[in-house]
């Protein structure tokens, strides 16, 4: 059974006189342990697609099965629980809480998973250590570089041991060198822990780190192929 399966997914935004068809007829299957890059120009619907499969947004029509569960009929709180336990997010703008230390940022998903304080701290420190942020645990986001902030965000996404990591333009705010570091981190993560990674990007260089590229244009999938590594 596929981890993620969408059938004729569509999203329609009711803006202006005509409205916008952000997604049309998207049927995609993603299996456990895949590393998928979703590509497309801005406005191609790739982010909308990720928000829907990330349970942050609801499709207008079509079906979405996550791990065999139909997401369509779930309540806000049930979706929150899925996001908490199955999906970790990494965003372009890092989305860390300001004036909050790295370790406390990483703790947040555990907080909503009712993990006791001591255990939260232990796991968060461990996740930060794994990502090479030892010594920076109590720094606030504004005291960290972009690459370090993104590592904190990845630690936050991983700390709850979610099987899926979704990254929306994770390197968009980073320089080339740091971007490569972050991407290598994701590749390593995918290889070592079999975490399913879904990456949204418009840069072919970044997409090249993945194993499969799904190309979006005007809300439709126009190509879906394996990456041949040279």
């Amino acid at each position, binding site marked *: 059974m596929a981890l993620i399966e969408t059938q004729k997914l569509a999203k329609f935004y009711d803006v202006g006189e005509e409205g916008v068809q952000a997604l049309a007829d998207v049927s995609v299957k993603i299996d456990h342990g895949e590393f998928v890059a979703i590509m497309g120009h801005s406005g191609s619907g790739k982010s909308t697609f990720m*928000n829907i499969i990330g349970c*942050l*947004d609801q499709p207008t029509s079509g079906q979405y099965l996550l791990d065999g569960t139909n997401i369509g009929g779930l309540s*806000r*709180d049930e979706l*929150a*629980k899925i*996001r*908490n*336990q199955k999906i*970790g*997010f990494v*965003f372009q703008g890092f*989305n*860390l*809480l300001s*004036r*909050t230390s790295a370790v406390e940022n990483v703790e*947040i*998903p555990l*907080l*909503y*998973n*009712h993990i006791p*304080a001591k255990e939260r701290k232990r796991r968060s420190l461990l996740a930060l250590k794994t990502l090479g942020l030892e010594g920076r645990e109590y720094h606030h986001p504004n005291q960290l570089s972009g690459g370090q902030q993104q590592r904190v965000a990845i630690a*936050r996404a991983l700390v*709850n041991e979610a099987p899926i990591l979704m990254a929306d333009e994770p390197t968009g705010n980073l320089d080339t060198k740091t971007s490569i570091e972050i991407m290598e981190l994701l590749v390593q993560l995918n290889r070592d822990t079999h975490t399913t990674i879904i990456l949204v990007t418009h840069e072919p260089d970044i997409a090249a780190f993945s194993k499969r590229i799904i190309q979006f244009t005007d809300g439709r999938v126009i190509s879906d192929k394996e990456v041949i590594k040279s």
Partner: protein
Amino acid sequence: MISILSTLRIALRALWVNKMRSSLTMLGIIIGVSAVIIMLAVGTGASQKISEQISSIGSNLLIVVPGSSTQGGIRMGGGSQSTLTKDDADAIQKECSSVSVVAPMHNGSAQVVYGNQNWSTSIQGTTPGILEVKDCGLTAGRNMTDQDVRNANKVCLLGQTVVDNLFGSMDPIGQIIRIKKIPFMVIGVLESKGQSLVGQDQDDTIIIPLTTAQKKIFGTTFPGMVRSIMVKAKSAEDLTIAERQVNDLLRQRHRMGPTKEDDFTVRNLTQMLQMAETATNIMTLLLGAIASVSLLVGGIGIMNIMLVSVTERTREIGIRMAVGAKTWDIRVQFIIEALTLSLIGGIVGIIIGAGGSAILSAVVGWPTVVSPLSILLSFGFSGLVGIFFGFYPAYKASLLNPIDALRFE
């Protein structure tokens, strides 16, 4: 829902980040709570003072005075007629079932002398029952006896003011004082009662046997005449029944036909004071209600700040939702934040209110009483204000769409 402790830490951090804003918001609650505490303290103080006065004149008390007399078309004041006798008093004691004690009174004022000291004071000729009627004890010596009344003995009980003026620090018991030049032996000293409602010194008095007063000090227009009769009912509930029984009995004894006007008046002293007490209680409530308005305004301040805070932190809410915060997690977070504001404000307000009441007592001299109830009430009320005015912003925050909240700039 996530643990309250973790939420509290988040709330305290959020409030700490905006110290100025948080403290100004709290100020609204502080002013409201301290106003409520001070107003209730002033009101409670006033009604407690009245309660003290009620118990100082004796509880469940009726006073029977003679009616007014008319001489040649000129109406004299109440009590100018001489219609009450000791026999009336005895009959009330014997026949009125709701009456516990009766004390007939024959009083006036006279100059008293001890050694080289002299003092003018009120003399009350009465029976031993007077102490029970007035709920008054003795600090020294003994009460007079029925024997003293029967024999018209020259004994007396002194109020504290009289003792102070005649004897200073000396022990008065067993000493002889002269009232209108007649020697009396001091047999007891009355417990201090302080001022009456109208500011009269209730300790400036001497009690002597009724018969002695009638025969040797003031004289009477006819034998056995008394100026008033004090009647104590068995209980507060019996008071009105006792009033009616006394009224009926005296009409019968004075042979008044159904159409004839009473030649006496029964006054219910306790009732008058209770009315005064009710009035102060209403006043306390009113003061409290007015002060509550400022607490309400403080609450609206909290709501205002929380709404601003929700808008400012939309992104934070989005992040929390993205990583798994449920509707109630978000709601509780903002409610706890509002509650923290209002409860800290409440505690500071209670301290300031209690301090303010003490200052008011010390400087202006108003009696104030900060009751535990008023503290509990205003603390609870400020908590309610926090929950009530925090709920709407929290509710608003919890309904945000995670993706919209994340994209909010």
